[in-house]
């Protein structure tokens, strides 16, 4: 009996030692030389593996960041400046702080404003629908409403609003990884700077048709009238092929464009007070009057 026990213990011990030796040798032989900083960088990453940086995941980003000579082309939109500062500290690089961004849906063709002309009965995917035809409304540029962006978001920041048929971005959850913008076949979603205290102004339409055509398709469409561009005193608005675009870098959030837009295509969000259109319009009229007077005087002199 005792013999058996002793033998068992002996065999198992010898076996254990032998196997440990084999493991040790194999590990040594097949050891992959890796920059230890990759692990360090990976540790400070958010770990969402969303691909927002353009790499397959956080590990791939870490590898690329360690290999690169600087951090100019590598930025983790999810972690933002905090994470990038940590990465920079590990690698000894400089990092340019970027303004935090958020996904913005540039379509406000609600069910009411944009009547459905036909009914789509295929697979509920914007990509499939876009490949088939121009969509179930008269607007061939607007949101298709099948929610490919919602499916693409790995942070649960997007949801479809059943009342409007449009996606809604939860600014708290949005990390500006850009997955939704890539998934949208109509390229409606844009990453824009969040703005001071989240305040920002943008044109919520991408319809490039001429005014009357766009208007017929959707009551809320940008008709390319250019009123906003004429009104803007900061040269922040450019007209590109029948649509206005507000450059967030130049916009001073005066909300004058929003007030003059005849179709309500320009949206301002997170402002503390609702827009008093009449007051702003009066202000613009006042300014124009003064300018006209000044011009008259200048002409006199």
């Amino acid at each position: 009996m005792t013999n058996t026990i002793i033998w068992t213990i002996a065999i198992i011990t010898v076996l254990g030692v032998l196997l440990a030796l084999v493991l040790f040798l194999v590990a040594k032989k097949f050891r992959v030389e890796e920059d230890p900083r990759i692990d360090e960088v990976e540790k400070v990453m958010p770990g969402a593996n969303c691909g927002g940086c353009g790499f397959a995941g956080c590990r791939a980003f870490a590898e690329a960041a360690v290999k690169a000579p600087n951090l100019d082309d590598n930025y983790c939109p999810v972690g933002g400046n905090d994470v990038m500062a940590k990465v920079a500290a590990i690698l000894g690089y400089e990092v340019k702080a970027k303004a935090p961004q958020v996904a913005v849906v540039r379509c406000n063709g609600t069910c009411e404003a944009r009547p459905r002309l036909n009914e789509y009965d295929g697979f509920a995917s914007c990509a499939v629908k876009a490949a088939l035809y121009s969509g179930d409304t008269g607007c061939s540029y607007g949101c298709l409403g099948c929610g490919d962006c919602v499916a693409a978001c790995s942070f649960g920041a997007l949801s479809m609003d059943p009342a409007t048929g449009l996606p809604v971005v939860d600014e708290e959850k949005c990390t500006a990884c850009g997955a939704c913008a890539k998934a949208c076949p109509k390229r409606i979603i844009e990453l824009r700077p969040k703005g001071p205290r989240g305040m920002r102004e943008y044109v919520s339409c991408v319809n490039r048709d001429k005014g009357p055509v766009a208007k017929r398709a959707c009551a809320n469409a940008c008709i390319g009238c250019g009123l906003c561009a004429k009104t803007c005193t900061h040269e922040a608005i450019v007209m590109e092929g029948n649509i206005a675009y507000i450059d967030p870098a130049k916009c001073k959030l005066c909300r004058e464009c929003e007030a003059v837009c005849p179709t309500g295509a320009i949206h301002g969000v997170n402002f503390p007070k609702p827009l008093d259109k009449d007051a702003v319009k009066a202000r613009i009229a006042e300014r124009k009057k003064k300018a006209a007077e000044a011009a008259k005087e200048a002409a006199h002199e």
Partner: protein
Amino acid sequence: MSKMIVSPSPHIHSKDSTRSLMLDVVIALMPAVLCSFVFYGWREILVMAVSVVSCLLLEWAITRFLLKKPSTLCDLSAVVTGILLALNLPYTTPWWVVFIGAVVAIGVAKMTFGGLGQNIWNPALVGRVFLLVSFPTYMTTWSMPQGLFGADAITGATPLGVINEGLMGGASVKDIMAQHGYDYGQMLFANLGGSAGEVCAIALLLGFVYLCCRRVIKPWITLTIFATVALTALIFWGVNPDRFTGPVFNLLTGGLILGACFMATDYVTSPMSVWGGVIFGVGIGFLTMMIRYFGSYPEGVSFAILIMNSFVPLINRAFHQKKFGRK
């Protein structure tokens, strides 16, 4: 004019639906069900009712309360599982044992994996094997029935069980068969003793032919099982007819026909390609015979099917359809 529908092509659909296919399976099972009612009487009707109702109830409850998904009762797959489970049990099984079988079949084998289409093993078979292992007494002793509404009679064992026991006692196959008066004609039409579904081979085959004609299933799997069983039995029986039972006996007993026609051909748990199906069938046939000849259980079909079910993902991976214009 109302709004026109727009969708990618094609714009029409065949009449097939999951529900219609399952309904065809139910129809195909009807001869066997009716035969079991006729031979075993009201107690079999009770087993069948408990089995089907509890399968439906469990499926409904699980989709409603656990998965919180729309109900899948309409696809009739739970009805098929219920009928198959009942056909795999002896008519004397107490109602609560049947219920436990249903819990294992629907709750464990089907819904745990995500419901119809996701399960690895045939639900009814998992239920049956669970009962076979847990309640061997109820599952292996049979009372000889006395027809519709008749009283119970002699307690006995299945032909396979009898032979297994006899062989262990040292008797030869021929002696045992003669002693118990087994006769192939009787087995084909009224194989008394065993699971309810095994009672009438002709009824089962009728259902199988119906399914093939309706193109619900393809016959390859079933036919290869039959062929493999017959061939294996022929070889062993040819070598030693005293020790091993013959091909006809093996084809007609132990739920082989029920298993080969209705359980092995279950879409979800069988390979999709023709050659995959053949491999699957050969595996089931061979394993069945090995278990029957050398295992401690007298029967092997259920185990063989479940074992081969486990290989289906691998078989599907290895055997693909022949692609057009490619070698």
